[in-house]
């Protein structure tokens, strides 16, 4: 255990004490203001809060490793998870803000005036959030596994226990100032190691400017070893897979229920646009740094670790080998560790690199604290989304409308517990690396919510039958493609499981349009409400005429 254990654990506990402290301090004030006139978080802070919500274990722990292992092909994640914000901010967020419902299933239920559509949307929310939380739990397993120097599976079990308590306690969802604090810690924890490595390797404190040459040099090293170059495009998968994955992540971003909800806390459509812009600036800071992180890690591994004597490896290697996520075996028996003999899981690159680069106990502990915040906060929020969809949209509105407040509370708690345990069991033997699992959640969102919301906002002719058929077809197509591609060896144009969203979204849009057109149009009232979304709050569309509210101006 030793010093590192004590430093890491204290930093994790200290940062969490800070989040909880801010939450308790602000809780009473915010709940009373939230529904009445609240909704007044300034865009810049709302942007940070969106950033904290957004950056989960996949971004913090998984992404740099994925870019390192996949090379250029991993950049689909970088572009996909940032480019989606344009679709969201241009096409959906301000309009959904004007419509003014509190959750995505509620919007779908009211816009299409259909209980069935509401229930299907609630089921989709549960499936997406569940898949997403498997990735988070696997991420907490990596962090806790390293902390206690145990197998990642034991780490996951400890993580499940912590998250179950954390989520039932109420999580940190919706408490903006906590998330602002979380963002600040997260980004500091991520940037410090990249900046230190940049100084170590290139002597330049600006990693974004300096790592280009390192990338080129990695290509050289690869050429000498006779393996394909780090930056070679479409090395692991086809160009179509890259494009499909990028689309799937972008459309999924625009359809993720727990991200869209964040835009309801701003005051106006104008503030929604600025929040989107600030959010991507804060998120971009991490996404622009991840490929630098990847390049420096790979460079250090290739130049300092590969080539060492197998009997003489640094102490950190053993701790990571204990988690089961790192293998270093002298397969050709020459006593020297070669680059080809290192098998490093995508998921440990961010966590292990500060140790590899010898950045000191404090930085290593800080990265652990940032990673825990990323995994736990997102997992907490997702589990709350699952429980509110189940207890409110399904149980209360469909199964038992007479349920008392107490009974609904009980169902909500019970569903959090069940969801955590089941997700934890799946995460014990994760079906993929963290970014891949999370990519499935995005594929499902792009096959279900993205088409439903896009057509719901921009096409007044879309009706209940259309959206119901569209969401069901989109869900079935996406899920079938993921399973067939992963376990059945099926693929179209080389597109694998993570790119499934492109088929789901196409099928859902076509179905929605065809079914809507062959069934009666929605009522005039609903069509007017959709036309109304074209204009800002001060303008109202009614009976073919536009009215301006002078008092609101």
């Amino acid at each position, binding site marked *: 255990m030793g010093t590192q254990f004590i430093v890491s654990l204290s930093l994790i506990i200290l940062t969490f004490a800070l989040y909880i402290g801010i939450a308790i301090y602000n809780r009473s004030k915010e709940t009373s*203001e939230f529904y009445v*006139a609240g*909704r*007044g978080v*300034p865009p810049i802070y709302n942007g940070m809060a969106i950033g904290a919500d957004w950056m989960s274990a996949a971004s913090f722990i998984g992404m740099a490793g994925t*870019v390192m292992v996949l090379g*250029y092909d991993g*950049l*689909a994640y*970088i*572009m996909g998870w*940032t*480019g989606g*914000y*344009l679709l969201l*901010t*241009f*096409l959906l967020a301000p309009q959904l803000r004007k419509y003014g419902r509190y959750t995505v299933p509620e919007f779908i239920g009211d816009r299409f005036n259909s209980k069935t559509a509401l229930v299907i949307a609630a089921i989709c929310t549960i499936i997406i959030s569940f898949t997403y939380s498997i990735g988070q739990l696997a991420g907490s397993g990596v962090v806790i596994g390293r902390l206690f120097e145990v197998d990642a599976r034991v780490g996951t079990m400890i993580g499940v226990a912590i998250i179950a308590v954390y989520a039932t306690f109420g999580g940190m969802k919706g408490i903006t100032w906590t998330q602002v604090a979380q963002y600040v810690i997260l980004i500091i924890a991520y940037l410090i190691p990249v900046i230190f490595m940049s100084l170590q390797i290139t002597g330049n404190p600006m990693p*974004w*400017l300096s*790592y*280009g*040459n390192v*990338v*080129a040099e990695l*290509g050289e090293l690869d050429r000498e070893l006779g393996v394909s170059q780090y*930056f*070679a*495009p*479409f090395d692991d998968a086809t*160009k179509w897979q890259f*494009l499909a994955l*990028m689309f799937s992540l972008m459309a999924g971003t625009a359809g993720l229920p727990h991200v869209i909800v964040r835009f309801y806390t701003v*005051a*106006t459509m*104008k*503030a929604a*646009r*600025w929040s*989107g*812009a600030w959010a*991507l*600036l804060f998120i*971009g800071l991490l*996404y*622009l740094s991840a*490929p630098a992180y990847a390049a420096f890690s790979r460079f250090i591994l290739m130049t300092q670790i590969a080539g060492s004597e197998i009997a003489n490896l640094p102490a950190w290697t053993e701790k990571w080998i204990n988690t089961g996520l790192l293998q270093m075996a002298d397969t050709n028996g020459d006593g020297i560790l070669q680059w080809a003999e290192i098998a490093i899981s995508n998921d440990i690159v961010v966590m292990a690199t500060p140790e590899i680069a010898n950045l000191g106990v404090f930085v290593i502990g800080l990265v652990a604290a940032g990673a825990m915040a990323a995994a736990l906060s997102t997992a907490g929020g997702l589990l709350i989304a699952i429980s509110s969809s189940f207890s409110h949209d399904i149980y209360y509105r469909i199964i038992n409308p007479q349920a008392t407040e107490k009974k609904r509370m009980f169902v909500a708690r019970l569903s959090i517990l069940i969801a955590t345990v089941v997700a934890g069991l799946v995460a014990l033997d994760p079906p993929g690396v963290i970014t891949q699992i999370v990519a499935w959640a995005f594929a499902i969102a792009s096959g279900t919510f993205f088409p439903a919301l896009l057509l719901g906002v921009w096409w007044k002719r879309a009706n209940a039958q259309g959206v119901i058929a569209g969401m069901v077809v989109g869900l079935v197509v996406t899920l079938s493609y993921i399973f067939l591609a992963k376990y059945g060896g099926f693929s179209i144009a080389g597109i694998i499981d993570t790119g499934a969203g492109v088929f789901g979204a196409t099928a859902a849009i076509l179905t929605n349009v065809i079914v809507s057109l062959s069934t009666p149009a929605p009522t005039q009232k609903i069509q007017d409400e959709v036309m109304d979304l*074209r*204009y*800002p709050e*001060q*303008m109202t569309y009614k009976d*073919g*005429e*536009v*009215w*301006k509210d*002078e008092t*609101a*101006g």
Partner: protein
Amino acid sequence: MKKIDKAVADAYFKERIRLIGILLVIWFIVSYVMVFFAESLAQYSFNGFPLHYFMGAQGSVATFIVLLFVNAAISDRIDEKYGLSPKKKIEQTLDRSVNQ
């Protein structure tokens, strides 16, 4: 409530749509088109990077951020042009949340 000429309301909507259309075309070029031509871009280099790698890792993301701020700023100007700037309301809400 004051009735607005339908032509004015339509012009507002068209202006907003045109802006979004232009920005999405740029968005599409820096992401999808650049990936599509990655192999040909690979022979050029920028700031040490092979160009296709630079576009994927930095160029596209930086452009996305700029496009979002451009959208927010120009949209504000369009709102102002049509006398729709919700200035007072925003300031009130800002005050409220700062005072929290």
